[in-house]
């Protein structure tokens, strides 16, 4: 190839990548603009602070916000200790071997199961067999199965990112392995674990299929974990499938904003965490 040809190809590829980036960005901007332009009336105090009423579900989304937050927090309450515990086992105790490999394989598999399958499983096991009915608890247990791989993987990686020098220093002081894990490794890995928890929270918050048949659809704010409720995403789904599109867009805006906040929080934590490790490497 002549040098002129090479330069032309180089320019063309550059233009092509710019074009692809522009298309992706334009699509995203249009997508967000479209939803916000149809649902911007969500930015109103009445909408956020009142309950829906009437057959067309006019009015606010307060019970849905409560249900979503309730369900997310309850999920984290169950999933974080389990996920972090599993992460500790995989990173600190498990060696290499067939059993550990099969655990990892199972975790990867679990993370790629479609959420409707989790919903169905939760419906059978938690709602029916365990008799929890449509409840926050049944929903949270189902979501726990779904977000567990995220928390587990990220906490395992955070534990692995803790320099061995810390463990050595702690062990050389006469700390036991348990003391080393809880007093040195865990505090060091906490930012990574929080990131995992926030990503999991974002996943749980936006989930529809796994929640629809486990936490129910009652448009009421739950108090006890044995009561059901309707999350924002389920509300959105029901509004959209019953033709209340204007209402649906407003709910979509609320969902988008909350999920955006989750992502900003996890980015913020991740940046702090990375900076810390970089400063340490110097």
């Amino acid at each position, binding site marked *: 190839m002549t040098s002129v040809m090479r330069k032309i190809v180089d320019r063309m590829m550059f233009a092509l990548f710019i074009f692809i980036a522009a298309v992706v960005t334009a699509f995203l901007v249009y997508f967000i603009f479209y939803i916000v332009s149809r649902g911007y009336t969500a930015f109103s105090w009445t909408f956020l602070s009142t309950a829906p009423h009437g057959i067309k579900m006019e009015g606010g989304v307060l019970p849905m916000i409560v249900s979503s937050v309730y369900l997310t927090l309850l999920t984290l309450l169950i999933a974080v200790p389990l996920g972090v515990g599993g992460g500790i086992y995989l990173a600190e105790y498990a060696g290499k071997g067939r059993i550990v490999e099969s655990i990892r394989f199972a975790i990867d598999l679990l993370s790629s199961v479609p959420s409707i399958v989790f919903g169905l499983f939760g419906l059978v096991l938690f709602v029916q067999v365990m008799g929890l009915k449509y409840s926050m608890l049944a929903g949270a247990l189902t979501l726990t199965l779904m977000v567990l791989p995220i928390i587990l993987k990220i906490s395992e990686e955070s534990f692995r990112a803790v320099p061995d020098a810390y463990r*050595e220093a702690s062990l*050389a002081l006469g*700390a036991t392995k348990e003391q080393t894990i809880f*007093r040195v490794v865990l*505090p060091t890995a906490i930012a990574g674990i929080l990131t995992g928890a926030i990503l999991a929270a974002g996943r749980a918050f936006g989930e529809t299929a796994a929640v629809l048949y486990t936490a129910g659809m009652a448009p009421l704010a739950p108090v006890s974990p044995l009561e059901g409720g309707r999350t924002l995403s389920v509300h959105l789904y029901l509004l959209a499938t019953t033709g209340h599109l204007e209402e649906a867009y407003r709910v979509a805006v609320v969902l988008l904003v909350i999920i955006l906040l989750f992502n900003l929080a996890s980015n913020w934590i991740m940046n702090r965490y990375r900076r810390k490790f970089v400063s340490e490497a110097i």
Partner: protein
Amino acid sequence: MKTTTLLEVSKVNIHYGTNCVLEDIDFIAPAHTITAIIGPSGCGKSTLLRSFNRTNELITKTRRTGDILLEGREINDYDPLDLRARVGMIFQKPAVLPTTIYENVAVGPRLYGTRKKSELDEIVEESLTGASLWKELKDRLHKRAEQLSGGQKQRLAIARTLALKPEIILFDEATASLDPISTQKIEDLMHRLKETTTIIIATHNMKQAARASDNTLFLMAEEGEPSRVVEFGPTELIFTNPKVEKTELYITGRFG
């Protein structure tokens, strides 16, 4: 100055799996002295050093035969956790925990159950003073320790070890990643610490061994064989009038 033997190593062999890395190691570390272990890279200096507070067995599967006696008692008969409090260790990479300066020192006493703030304050002050850090850092005890310089971090690691009032401190290439001035400070510190502890250092820096130690143990392996003691004796003699030709060749930099 007492001249009792604090650590006695006799006929020690260390194996990694089936592979023997150190064979027939004999030496003694009298109380209040500095012993330098020198030798080429990979001759097992660190492995030997780490066997003295049994941190080897935590990370890799090593097996030891022969005796290592601390105050006349086999170290395997001590509780390993107590042993590690009595035999402290400083690593090449200054291990500063991602917390405050204060907590970095207090972590050891806390592990052993000291909870009272006044007691911890006292230990922290004493230990930082012992590591020549108190004057520099007393106004920023509750600042994060990651911001310290490399030399300060290493002295902080020493303070953390001192907080447990160890009888022996092992320095594993502790100045290898420091600049000359920080190195000088650590060597001065070792010299002062001799009054209260006994020090064993592993170093590939022969000048350091010559400057800082009282006794020198020179380890080396023949091709394909485990490392053995080539020579052990007062540092002055080893460096001025070695008995073995290999020692002379090594310390004058002609091989190794």
